[in-house]
């Protein structure tokens, strides 16, 4: 029963969030689906790799320290069809992301929404 309930409310989250088509080859159990956070930072690297595109970015804290984050998106072939290339984000670009952080506190994000210097970027193909 608990398995079913977890599944059901995961579905509700997907519906409310409007995540649309499947994002991943795996589920999101490793990430805290109960909280989303918004981060703004500077891109240091874009890995356009199988099975998920990974964005690396630095986020400066209020105390002046910098944290190196990574966030993962869907598969590169799906993002290509949505208009992305391996150069869509470049080192030095500012970005804002919304997503769910790894439950163990690591600076890793399952990205739900992303915006680069030119505005919102698609997270899946139509």
């Amino acid at each position, binding site marked *: 029963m608990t398995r079913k309930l*977890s599944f059901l409310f*995961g579905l*509700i989250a997907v519906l409310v969030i409007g995540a649309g088509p499947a994002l991943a080859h*795996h589920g999101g*159990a490793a990430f805290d689906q109960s909280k989303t956070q918004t981060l703004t930072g500077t891109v240091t690297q874009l890995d356009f790799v199988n099975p998920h595109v990974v964005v690396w970015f630095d986020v400066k804290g209020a105390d002046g320290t910098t944290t190196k984050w990574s966030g993962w998106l869907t598969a590169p072939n799906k993002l290509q*069809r*949505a208009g*992305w290339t391996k150069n869509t984000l470049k080192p030095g670009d500012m970005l804002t992301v919304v997503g769910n952080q790894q439950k163990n506190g690591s600076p890793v994000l399952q990205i739900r929404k992303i915006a680069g210097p030119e505005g919102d*970027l698609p997270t899946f193909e139509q």
Partner: protein
Amino acid sequence: MRTRVIAPTLAAAFALAASATLLSQAAPAGQGARGGGARGGAPAAAAASAPAPAKDLSGIWMMRNPPGKNGPWTNFTYTDPMKAPPALTEWGQAQFKLAKDSNGGNYTLDETNDPVLTKCYPPGVPRVYFHPYPFEVIQTPKQTLLVYEYDHWMRRVHTDGRALPTDPDLIWMGTSVGRWVDDHNFQVETVGFNEKTWLDRLGHAHSDQLKVTENFRRIDRDHLELDIKMEDPKALARPWVTTFYYENRPQWELGEISCSGDYLDWTQVEKGGKEYKR
């Protein structure tokens, strides 16, 4: 324990919905990204479609649930698991209890025993349809090829009139024969599966007695309905049936998504490590 995620999950969902003022919904495909795509953008939403050509499924098809049909559970199972779960035999229930799925959101990659995610096993049929990637139909006079973008899996459907094998070899994707029922319905029957794959991404099991019948029904030029029936006297108390919906994507071409070491390395990435190969 897992019921604890209910309230936070809902809270997060609404919080993210509220955040839409900061970041609006994802831009339409092909827009908002610097440089554009090498393969061109996705087509605009289908207008009124031309009639379906006769006895022709060729093209690239992508699962898209029409409004009011199916639900997000088509990402990982065939019917609404809360309202219409499959009827399992005692053996099927016992096997299902052993499954630790990832795609349903219940287990991490470190915990799951999903054979695709942990071993890169082929997905089997019809599980291959849950991978969120398109498939292409290539027709020749004596066989129809079903080519799936995921891992470039290919099924050869014999259309030369041969019968299903009575004593098939037990393989990952089975042995298939097909025939046109009429101008717009193509029926495929498949038998001869090994028992190493799951029926779906939640971990429902099947045996080597599984028979899968697919009916591809081209509604019009741009739309395809796929009826799937699974029969397995060892695992299923009754046949499990569903209908999936697809849209034509003439501007796409199949790309590459490989269940290589990258898949397995991802377990480390998910845990917060950085140990994956570029």
